[in-house]
């Protein structure tokens, strides 16, 4: 399947096609055309191109076109052999540090580093002289010269893989070092190694032709492309094609290897996000449906954010993934609203969509999406939208390490907001940044502003992030799992800070969290999401007691707290979350719900509001759960 995707790309198609042709010629060329390439025609020495000899003949009157074709086998074989030598030696050198003691490992690594620093061509020439003139010597030379680069690559990749816990687990299980290398480490670095080897083969081909051209490689009567070029060089002003022909062959074969490698690299790269293929051409549709056809209704006064029918669709490899399937909610000024749900429920995607931080090819639709009186769906380019949103919408992410640019000092990164959005001068913006760091209770804000993000602890980075949001006057803070990566004590401080900031600025808060207890403590209202839909909305203080949806109740019961009954097993939600690319008919939770019946499985329950404004989407809202539901295990 992956190979098919590689082939479907133009680069992959061209690369593979070319490589296939080159390899076919290499295999069958000598068989088919050896006769025509060796026939000596003394009446036609050093002739130019003609109908009979397409690119002329050599000094013995042999047809050069067929000689180029026949030379393919030797050229390709030598290139592949040299690449193989380099790769095998490189893998051995790169992997050796994993097997040897620390000192030997360090010696090998430093030796490889020194060799990598040497110019490759110098190494080739050095080895070529050592191994003597000839095809075998040249193959060894080119192979050996390529080994350090492979060794370095292999070593780096292995170091990355060695950090993985499965290697540690194998070590703990008493698996030998060699077996760990062969069974766990090498298979997991094979892909990048092979991609690199394919691309390196192109380079090796060129180097080899160069050696033969210099007379250090293939010797007569054998011939490869480099040798043919050398032979053709003498007459280059008379019959340029005699030298250019083999040159073109080198270029084509080199391209074949490189394009194939590129195609594979691209294919492997994309699979970092499994199942999501890069699909274009959805822009138009998104623009149209979001257009002003549905006039944005005036939201109720006092509403800072109003979302109606929000849908987010991610183009998938097989079918589209419906991450959010029609979500409607509103946040009043100064209100704190929490969103809870399992991973994959669409809660983070909802937050990102509201902040308009989702880009192509993911598609965002909504009947309306109004923030502070601005319709965010009105088609516009993201840059001007961000400028208009300005500093009134603030987003705080889970991982504060990745939300700052590690190469810049913290202060200037905050100041940038002031310069971009508020038109402050450099000095004024920096002063404001220091003031804001002070506002989020960082000690010594002057000094901190001149430090880099890595000098901050996780909690300090999260404070600085909130401080960046405070460069303007936020009306809404969207916080996506802002405390998940932090320790409980730091979590407490950050939550308290968010509370104070809201008190000072009157900003509303949209808090995404998987932690029911955090949401209960911080928020006024809770939205419970499941399979891309809101399934329940209720006041946060009632979450533990008055929740009516079986999912909400299970979610609350599944988390042990300091009062959990120790004598009973914890409640468990059976089954697994819905695959967002394949949402079943009826209620999405039915398969895991102890109350579900045929009606639930057939008809999707609507989200209905009661008199108090609480909403729930369940045919059996509030029904008592069967007594044994707590005993079910996954």
């Amino acid at each position, binding site marked *: 399947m992956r190979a098919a995707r590689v082939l479907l790309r133009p680069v992959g198609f061209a690369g593979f096609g070319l490589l296939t042709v080159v390899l076919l010629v290499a295999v069958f060329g000598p068989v088919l055309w050896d006769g025509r390439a060796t026939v000596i025609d003394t009446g036609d020495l050093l002739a130019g191109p003609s109908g009979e000899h397409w690119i002329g003949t050599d000094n013995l009157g042999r047809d050069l076109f067929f000689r180029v074709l026949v030379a393919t086998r030797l050229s390709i074989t030598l290139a592949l052999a040299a690449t193989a030598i380099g790769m095998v030696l490189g893998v051995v050198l790169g992997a050796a540090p994993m097997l040897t003691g620390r000192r030997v490992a360090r010696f090998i690594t430093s030796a490889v580093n020194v060799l990598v620093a040497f110019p490759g061509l110098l190494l080739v020439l050095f080895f070529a002289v050592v191994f003597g003139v000839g095809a075998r010597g040249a193959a060894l030379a080119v192979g050996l010269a390529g080994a350090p680069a492979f060794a370095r690559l292999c070593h780096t990749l292995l170091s990355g893989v060695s950090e993985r816990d499965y290697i540690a687990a194998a070590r703990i299980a*008493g698996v030998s070092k060699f077996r760990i290398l062969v069974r766990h480490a090498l298979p*997991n670095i094979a892909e990048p190694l092979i991609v690199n080897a394919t691309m390196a083969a192109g380079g090796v081909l060129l180097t080899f032709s160069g050696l033969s051209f210099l007379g250090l490689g293939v010797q007569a009567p054998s011939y490869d492309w480099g040798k043919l070029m050398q032979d053709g060089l003498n007459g280059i002003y008379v019959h340029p094609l005699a030298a250019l022909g083999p040159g073109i062959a080198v270029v084509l074969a080199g391209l074949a290897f490189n394009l194939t490698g590129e195609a594979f690299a691209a294919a492997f790269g994309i699979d970092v996000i499994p199942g999501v293929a890069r699909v274009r051409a959805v822009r138009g549709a998104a623009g149209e449906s979001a257009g002003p056809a549905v006039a944005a209704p005036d939201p109720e006064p006092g509403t800072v954010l109003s979302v109606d029918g929000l849908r987010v669709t991610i183009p998938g490899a097989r079918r589209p993934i419906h991450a959010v399937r029609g979500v409607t909610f509103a946040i009043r000024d100064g209100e704190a609203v929490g969103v809870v749900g399992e991973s994959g429920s669409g809660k983070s995607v909802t937050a990102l969509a509201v902040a308009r931080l989702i880009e192509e090819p993911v598609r965002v639709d909504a009947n309306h999406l109004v923030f502070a009186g601005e319709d965010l769906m009105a088609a516009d380019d993201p840059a001007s939208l961000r400028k208009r949103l300005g500093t009134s919408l603030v987003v705080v992410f889970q991982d504060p390490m990745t939300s700052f640019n590690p190469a810049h000092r913290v202060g200037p990164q905050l100041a940038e907001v002031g310069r971009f959005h508020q038109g402050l001068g450099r000095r004024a913006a920096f002063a404001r940044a220091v003031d804001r760091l002070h506002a989020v209770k960082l000690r010594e804000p002057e000094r901190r502003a001149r430090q880099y993000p890595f000098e901050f602890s996780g909690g300090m980075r999260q404070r600085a992030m909130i401080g960046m949001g405070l460069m303007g006057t936020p009306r809404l803070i969207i916080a996506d799992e802002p405390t998940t990566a932090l320790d409980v004590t730091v979590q407490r401080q950050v939550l308290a800070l968010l509370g104070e900031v809201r008190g000072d600025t009157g900003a509303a808060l949209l808090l995404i969290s998987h932690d029911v207890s955090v949401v209960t403590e911080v928020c006024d209202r809770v939205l419970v999401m499941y399979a891309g839909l809101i399934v329940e909305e209720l006041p946060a203080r009632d979450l533990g007691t008055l929740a009516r949806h079986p999912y909400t109740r299970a979610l609350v019961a599944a988390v042990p707290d300091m009062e959990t009954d120790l004598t009973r097993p914890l*409640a468990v939600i059976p089954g697994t979350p819905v695959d967002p690319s394949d949402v079943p008919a009826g209620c999405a939770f039915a398969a895991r719900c102890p109350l579900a019946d045929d009606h639930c499985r057939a008809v999707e329950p609507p989200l209905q509001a009661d008199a108090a404004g609480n909403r729930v989407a369940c045919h059996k809202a509030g029904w008592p759960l069967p007594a044994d539901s707590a005993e079910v295990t996954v």
Partner: protein
Amino acid sequence: MSLLSFRGVSVRYGSHTVLKDVSLDVAGGEVVGLVGESGSGKSTLARAAVGLAPVTTGEILLDGRPVPNRGRARPVQMVFQDPYSSLDPRMTVGESIAEAMRERLGKEARRAEIARLLALVHLDASRADDLPVRLSGGQRQRVALARALAARPEVILADEITSALDVSVQGAVLNLVRDMRRELGLSMLFISHNLAVVRYVADHVAVLYAGEIVEYGPTARVLGAPQHDYTRHLLAALPGAVRRTSSGNGRPAPTSALKEQT
């Protein structure tokens, strides 16, 4: 029943001291919880016991003898936090489990043993042929547990094994830990930053702060009547703690509320 015993263990990297003179016993059949914030050295203590971190001074003993870190027999096993990184993506579930077994078994015997281990962690034997990609996070963590059990360990070190899991799955894994302990009589060092989770599974709790154990005792005592300031600090930081203390114990516990309905 085996006793895992840390005696004055210090771990230093250069001038940086991660663990300072830590002494801790995990008695046979007992679950000891280890709590503390990140950077306090929790994971390092576990990694030192299985030879993944170098012990600078002190010793780690199993029944009075140093924990073996060479050879096939490894009576101390570890389960890692991230089930997405702890299984080799290219090995089937069965292969991963079989690799940790102490001795080479015949094909049939191995298959039977894999099935037995999968059953212990409530997974179907047919899962043995699946690659980890096909499994959810909770299922992967079960496989990681099965792999640890394959080595027939006397002690299991569980390093934040529920932290990377969804809340809905966390409970299932915690139930499993309690079942295994009851059925297999395993000793366990259960590392977590989540006090409620530790409270649920551990008999004793050790509180680690800046590389030192500042409090140790029966779970109910340490979490109910903490002696050390840092423990009190940790407890006060729990979400809901304010409400709990301000309203006495009057906050309706969500779980019990649910159970009343059932």
